[in-house]
C-alpha cells in the first residue's frame, strides 16, 4: 500500500512539475518598463540582424587579446548603456580641447576624448593643461533610428536661429563635417561650405549612427575598425579589431531599438502635467512630436514619434557652459536631449537620477532649475507653479 502511495506521489509530483514549468520562471517586465527591444514589424531577417547587433552591443566584452585599449573608457558598449538606458557617472566620459568654433587644437594631445583607463602596463591619458573640457554621461540608445529617419528639412523647419518669432528661443542645427565613410542620406541639405546637419551626441556633432558607433568603438574602447583605424594611444594606423559586419549589425540594432512607451497616460495628474509642461513653453525645445521621412528601414519611415526634443542647439546659459564645445556649437549650446524614457532613467543609473549632460542633476526639479539662457523663461514659469502643479509636471515627465 505504502509503495503504491509513493508511486502515486511521485507521479503527481512529476505532473505538477510538468504543468508548472512555464509558471516557475520569472516573468518579463511590461514592455513599457523596458528600453530595449526592437521596433514592431521587423522581418525575420531583420530580427536576426537585430539579435546579432544586440549580442555585439551587450555581450561582447573586449580584452587585451581582442583589442581593448590600451587606453579606454569602457570594456563594452553595454557597460555604458545598461539596458540601453542612460549611463552612470562611472561610465561618464570626458571630451576636451575645443573651446570655440574653430576646431579642436588638442587633437595631437589625446583630444577630443579622454581615455582615463588603461590596460595593465600602460598609462591612461590626462587632460592637457589649459584644455577646456566637459563630462558627458552616456545617453539612452532608445529610439535612435527614428531620429536618424527625420529629414533635414524637418529639423530645419524647427529651427529659428534668429528668433524671428521673438519668443526668446532660437534653436539651430550644428553644421559639421561628415566623415568620408558616412552614407549621405537622401534629402540631405548641404550648406554652401559643404557642412552637414549633425544630429547625434550632446552637441549634435555626429552625422549618423555609423559615425556614432565607430567613434564609440574607437574612442570609448580603443577598438579600431575599417572606418576609424587610428590607434587612440599612439596615433598610428592600426588593423581593424572589429569586423564591418559587426559594426553594421550594431548600427542596425541601434536603428531598430524601439522608442520608449509612455506610461500612465490616463492618469489625470499626468495629463495635467503635460499641459503645464506645454504652458511653460518647455515644448518649444522639447518638441512633443516629430515626423520621420523616407528611410531605408520601412518600419521607421514616415512615422510620428514623441521624442520631446527638436534635436537642435540651444544656448542653455552660463550654468551649463563648461567652456568646451564641438563642431559649430558654442560652449553654452547643447542639443535638446530627448525626454522620452526619462522616467526609466533610474533603472539604468543604479536607482538614482544623474541628469543633464554630465549627470550633475540628481532630480528632475534640479535639472529644470539648472536651465538658463533660452530656457530661462520656462524655468521661471516652472518655478512659479504651485507645489502640486510642480508634482504633476514631474509626474508627467516621469511617465515618459
Amino acid at each position, binding site marked *: 500500500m505504502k509503495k503504491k502511495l509513493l508511486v502515486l506521489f511521485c507521479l503527481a509530483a512529476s505532473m505538477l512539475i510538468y504543468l508548472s514549468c512555464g509558471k516557475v520562471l520569472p516573468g518579463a517586465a511590461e514592455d513599457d518598463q523596458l528600453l530595449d527591444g526592437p521596433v514592431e514589424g521587423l522581418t525575420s531577417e531583420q530580427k536576426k540582424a537585430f539579435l546579432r547587433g544586440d549580442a555585439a552591443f551587450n555581450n561582447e566584452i573586449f580584452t587585451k587579446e581582442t583589442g581593448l585599449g590600451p587606453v579606454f573608457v569602457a570594456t563594452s558598449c553595454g557597460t555604458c548603456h545598461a539596458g540601453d538606458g542612460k549611463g552612470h557617472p*562611472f561610465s561618464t566620459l570626458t571630451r576636451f580641447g575645443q573651446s570655440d568654433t574653430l576646431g579642436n587644437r588638442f587633437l595631437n594631445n589625446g583630444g577630443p576624448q579622454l581615455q582615463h583607463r588603461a590596460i595593465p602596463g600602460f*598609462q591612461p591619458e590626462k587632460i592637457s593643461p589649459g584644455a577646456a573640457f566637459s563630462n558627458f554621461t552616456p545617453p539612452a540608445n532608445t529610439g535612435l533610428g527614428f531620429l536618424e529617419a527625420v529629414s533635414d528639412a524637418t529639423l530645419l523647419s524647427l529651427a529659428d536661429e534668429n528668433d524671428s518669432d521673438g519668443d526668446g528661443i532660437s534653436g539651430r542645427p550644428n553644421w559639421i563635417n561628415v566623415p568620408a565613410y558616412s552614407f549621405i542620406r537622401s534629402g540631405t541639405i548641404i550648406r554652401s561650405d559643404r557642412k552637414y546637419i549633425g544630429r547625434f551626441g550632446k552637441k549634435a556633432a555626429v552625422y549618423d549612427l555609423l559615425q556614432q558607433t565607430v567613434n564609440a568603438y574607437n574612442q570609448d574602447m580603443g577598438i579600431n575598425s575599417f572606418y576609424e583605424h587610428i590607434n587612440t594611444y599612439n596615433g598610428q594606423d592600426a588593423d581593424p579589431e572589429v569586423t564591418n559586419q559587426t559594426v553594421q549589425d550594431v548600427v542596425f540594432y541601434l536603428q531598430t531599438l524601439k522608442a520608449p512607451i509612455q506610461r500612465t497616460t490616463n492618469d489625470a495628474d499626468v495629463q495635467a502635467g503635460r499641459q503645464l509642461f506645454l504652458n511653460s513653453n518647455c515644448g518649444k525645445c522639447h518638441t512633443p512630436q516629430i515626423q520621420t521621412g523616407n528611410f531605408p528601414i520601412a518600419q521607421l519611415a514616415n512615422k510620428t514619434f514623441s521624442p520631446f526634443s527638436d534635436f537642435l542647439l540651444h544656448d542653455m546659459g552660463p550654468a551649463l557652459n563648461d567652456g568646451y564645445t564641438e563642431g559649430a556649437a558654442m560652449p553654452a549650446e547643447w542639443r535638446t536631449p530627448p525626454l522620452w524614457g526619462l522616467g526609466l532613467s533610474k533603472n539604468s543609473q*543604479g536607482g538614482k537620477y544623474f541628469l543633464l549632460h554630465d549627470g550633475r542633476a540628481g532630480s528632475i526639479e534640479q535639472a529644470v532649475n539648472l536651465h538658463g539662457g533660452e530656457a530661462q523663461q520656462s524655468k521661471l514659469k516652472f518655478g512659479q507653479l504651485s507645489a502640486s502643479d510642480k508634482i504633476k509636471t514631474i509626474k508627467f515627465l516621469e511617465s515618459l
Partner: protein
Amino acid sequence: MKQVCLLILTALFFAQANAQIDPELLRKPQADTGSLKLNMDAVYDRPFAKVGKLPVALGGYMEANYQYLGEDGVTEGHQFQMRRLTLFVSSSISQRIKFLTEIEFEDGTKEINIEFASVDFEFAPLLNFRGGIVMNPIGAFNQNHDGPKWEFIDRPISATQMLPATFSNVGFGIFGKKYANKWVYAYEAYLTNGFNDRIIENSENKTFLPATKPDASRFEESFNGSMLFTGKVAVRNSRIGEIGLSYMSGAYNKFQEDGLVLDKKRLATIYAVDFNTTLPTKTFITGEWAWVNVDIPDTYTEQFGRKQQGGFVDIVQPILQRSMFGFGKATLNAALRLEYVDWNKGSFKSTGDKVGDQVYSIIPAISWRPTSQTVLRLNYRYNWQRDMLNNLPSRLAGLQFGLSTYF
C-alpha cells in the same frame, strides 16, 4: 594530449576487460567507514573497483541533467546536458606509495582535463609528500566536489565562479594528519604553478579567478615564473564536525620577462573557511565562505573588483530512509542551498556608492538516493543578479532534474 589519449585508451581497455571477466573478480576494496574523514580525504574516499590481482583500481562518476530555466521572461527552453564524466585510476605502487589520477570530460568532450594526477609518499602519518597535478586545497568544495556527493545539480557559484573550482596545478607539497581520541587534525601545503593575468582581463567583465583555467600551459610552465602557495589546516571532532581554514596566494601578472621588470608583482590572495557537521536529527550542514583580494592597478577599470567575497551553505535533511522500489537502503532527502557572491566589494570613485555585481541564490531540492553512491535530484533554482551599477536585479529561475552516480 597524447598522454591523455593514452590514459583514456588504458581506461577503455580495462573497461573492455571488465566486460570479458566474471564480475566476481571485481573486488570493491573495503572502505574506511570511520567518522573522522576530512575533506582532504575526499580524493581517495571514492568507490574503486579492483580487477583481479591487477595493482590498479578503477572508478569514476557521471552527471547528466535536464533543465528548464528562464531569465526575466526569456527562456532557452528545454535543455538536456551531460555535465561530466570522470574516470579515476588509482594504484598502490607500494605499501606507502600511492598514485591516483582523475580525468574529467565536461559537457560531452568540450573540455577534457586531468584534474588530479599525483603520487603520494607516506613517510609518517604527519608527513606525506605529494607531487604531480594536485588540487589546490582552497575551501572544501575544490577538494570534495564529486557530483554524487551533492544534492544539487549546479556546483556552488562561489566555489566555481569566484573561487576557481575545480582548480588543479602542477606542483609539490606535504600533508599530514594526527588523530587524538575523537579529534583529527590535518594540514596541507603546496607550491604549484598558478594564476595568469586573465583573472582581470577576461570576457566576464569582472575579476574572475576561473578565467585562468582555460590556459592549459600552466601544466607545463608558470605564467610568470612565480609559485602559488596553497595551505590549509582542518580539524574534525567526531561529534561536532569539521572546520577548515585555507589560504592561497600568488602573483598573477607577468611582472618580468627576459630579465626586464615590467610591473610590480601583483598578488591574488584568497582566504576561505569551510565547515560541515551532522546534527542529531541527521541534518547534514556544509558550507564555505571565501574572501578574494586582487592587487589591480588603480588605472584599470573599477569594473574589475579588487575584493570579492561569497559562499554557500547546504542543509540536507533525510526524510525517509527505508527500502524503496527494491533498493534496500534508499534515502529521500529534502535539501536547501543558499548562496551569495559579491564580485566587487568596492565603491565607485565618482559617486562613492557601493559597486553592485552580486548574486543571491536559493535552491530548494529533493533528492533520492537508491544507494549512497547514486543520486536522483530535483532542484528549483532562483537567482537574483545585480549588475555593477546596482540596478534592479535580473531574476533567473527554473527547474533542474538530474542524476549522478559513481560507477
